[in-house]
């Protein structure tokens, strides 16, 4: 890499300038510059998000949808404007299809408990894939157990790609719902959602997409994907923890019973009869995480301003560079070699346990995740207990990939 090109990718993305937006990245860890490669667990927050939350608490804090006073109107307007930001971000048809939830996990549980309990009965089937996060497995197990339904699992190949032939054979008239990840958190595989949706719709099964790992890296257009539900978490896309979004098609959401009861989700309450509020409020019981929603809005605006396509191109360049470099280290086995990948480099190193890799990398300032990544079935597929996972974000550089490689060399020295 020439000096002139340092930090600027082919896409003209000035990564050094972007890094300056993230205060936390400026620090040292164990005396070494922090190399944060645990973005699939959670991303760091740009100043724009931190300041939006502070501004809200310092100047606007009030409850939403209730007060007639000045601050409540300001807070409500700002809160609702984020719904429009999210609608536009996902290209949903209508802002009432955007439901604020705590995160992807709550979104999936909402669909399982509301749509699932209303539509899934004894002998019915729910189809997921072998590469799902536990949060896209367990809610369906709970539902299936309760309803006497069956959870079917479409297998993956040794490259970590969904076996579409098997997937299509598992679809049938009993399939009442398909729930599939857009991007695998453990492998980085990008699933062909449009094809999956077409296949599922041909048997009349709606599709929920777990977008937690996709939204930070890919342009998501829910209408182009054709999916019925799409879930993601704010904190993985530079927003705060504790806030996320469930998108659902109006026609489905209208027919679903409420998930939780409480304030804000009702039109009128007597002890004899309660009339539920209209969409999306029917699914937003209780005082929401208003500051979280406002922080999420700032995060989505931040990503849109940089351009998700440019972010994706920059990340792909760094991930490819890191993958090539790490692959050449003796003993390294890359787990997840799908043709279409985003953001993730999962690997093992000879007989060295990933936990030991993680500890040694940490001493070099390199933060990665080690373990099963809440995807134990994926680990079982590859016959391993755990992997070391480096996961990338828009602020990661090739120099950081070099630091990762040097740190892995340290592991080899210690375990030589």
């Amino acid at each position, binding site marked *: 890499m020439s000096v002139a090109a340092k930090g600027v990718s082919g896409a003209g993305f000035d990564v050094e300038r972007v890094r300056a937006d993230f205060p936390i990245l400026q620090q040292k860890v164990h005396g070494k510059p922090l190399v944060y490669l645990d973005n699939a667990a959670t991303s760091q927050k740009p100043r724009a998000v931190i300041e939006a939350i502070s501004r809200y608490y310092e100047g606007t804090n009030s409850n939403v949808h209730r007060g007639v006073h000045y601050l409540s109107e300001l807070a409500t307007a700002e809160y609702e404007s984020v719904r429009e930001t999210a609608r536009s971000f996902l290209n949903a048809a209508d802002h009432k299809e955007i439901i604020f939830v705590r995160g992807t996990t709550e979104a999936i549980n909402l669909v399982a408990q509301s749509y699932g309990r209303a539509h899934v009965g004894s002998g019915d089937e729910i189809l997921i894939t072998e590469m799902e996060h536990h949060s896209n497995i367990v809610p369906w197990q709970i539902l299936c157990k309760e309803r006497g339904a069956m959870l079917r699992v479409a297998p993956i190949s040794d490259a970590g790609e969904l076996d579409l032939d098997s997937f299509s054979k598992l679809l049938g008239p009993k399939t009442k719902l398909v729930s599939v990840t857009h991007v695998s958190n453990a492998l980085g595989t990008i699933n062909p959602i449009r094809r999956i949706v077409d296949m599922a719709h041909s048997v009349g099964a709606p599709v929920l997409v777990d977008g937690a790992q996709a939204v930070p890296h890919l342009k998501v257009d829910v209408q182009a994907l054709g999916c019925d539900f799409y879930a993601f978490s704010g904190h993985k896309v530079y927003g705060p923890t504790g806030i996320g979004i469930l998108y659902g098609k109006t026609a489905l959401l209208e027919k679903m019973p409420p998930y939780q009861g409480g304030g804000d989700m009702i039109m009128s309450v007597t002890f004899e009869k309660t009339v539920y509020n209209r969409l999306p409020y029917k699914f937003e019981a209780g005082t929401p995480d208003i500051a979280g929603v406002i922080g999420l809005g700032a995060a989505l605006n931040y990503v849109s301003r940089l351009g998700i396509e440019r972010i994706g191109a920059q990340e792909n360049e760094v991930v490819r560079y890191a993958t090539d470099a790490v692959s050449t280290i003796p003993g390294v086995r890359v787990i997840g070699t799908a043709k279409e990948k985003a953001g993730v480099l999962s690997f093992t190193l000879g007989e060295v346990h990933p*936990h030991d890799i993680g500890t040694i990398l940490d*001493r070099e300032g390199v933060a990665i995740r080690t*373990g*099963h990544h809440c995807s134990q079935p994926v680990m079982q597929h590859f016959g391993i207990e755990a992997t070391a996972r480096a996961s990338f974000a828009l602020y990661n550089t090739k120099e950081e990939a070099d630091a990762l490689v040097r740190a892995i060399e340290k592991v080899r*020295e210690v375990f030589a």
Partner: protein
Amino acid sequence: MSDLRDLYQDVILEHSKAPRNYKELPAANHKAEGFNPLCGDRFTVYVTMDGDAIRDISFQGSGCAISKASASMMTQIVKGKSAAEAEKLFESFHNLVTGQANTNGGAELGKLAVFSGVSEYPARVKCATLAWHTLQAALEGKQETTTE
């Protein structure tokens, strides 16, 4: 690098690569499985008690270098000891790896003193103590235990 060597001492690396008493004990009359749900480490500890004495002990399973070396060295040090002595050793060992040892563990811990570096790595304390928790469960007649 020097501080990493405090954790990954040669003795620890050597035991992790060639663990001692790494086998099933068909004659075991006590057995328990230990599991660390955080990282997936999993060990089974087999014990043959002769009265109050640990006549034989072994382990099997998978885990990181620290947990495996700790299990290996634990089987060596407790063999021939009484259950009460093993319990006391665990207490001293726990104090050592959590940095609460008022002395340096003393002569009783012997070779286990190499684990003193763990106290600088709080995230790894559970790795070092997993086998000991499992032994404790086995002696108490429990089938399984977790570090959580």
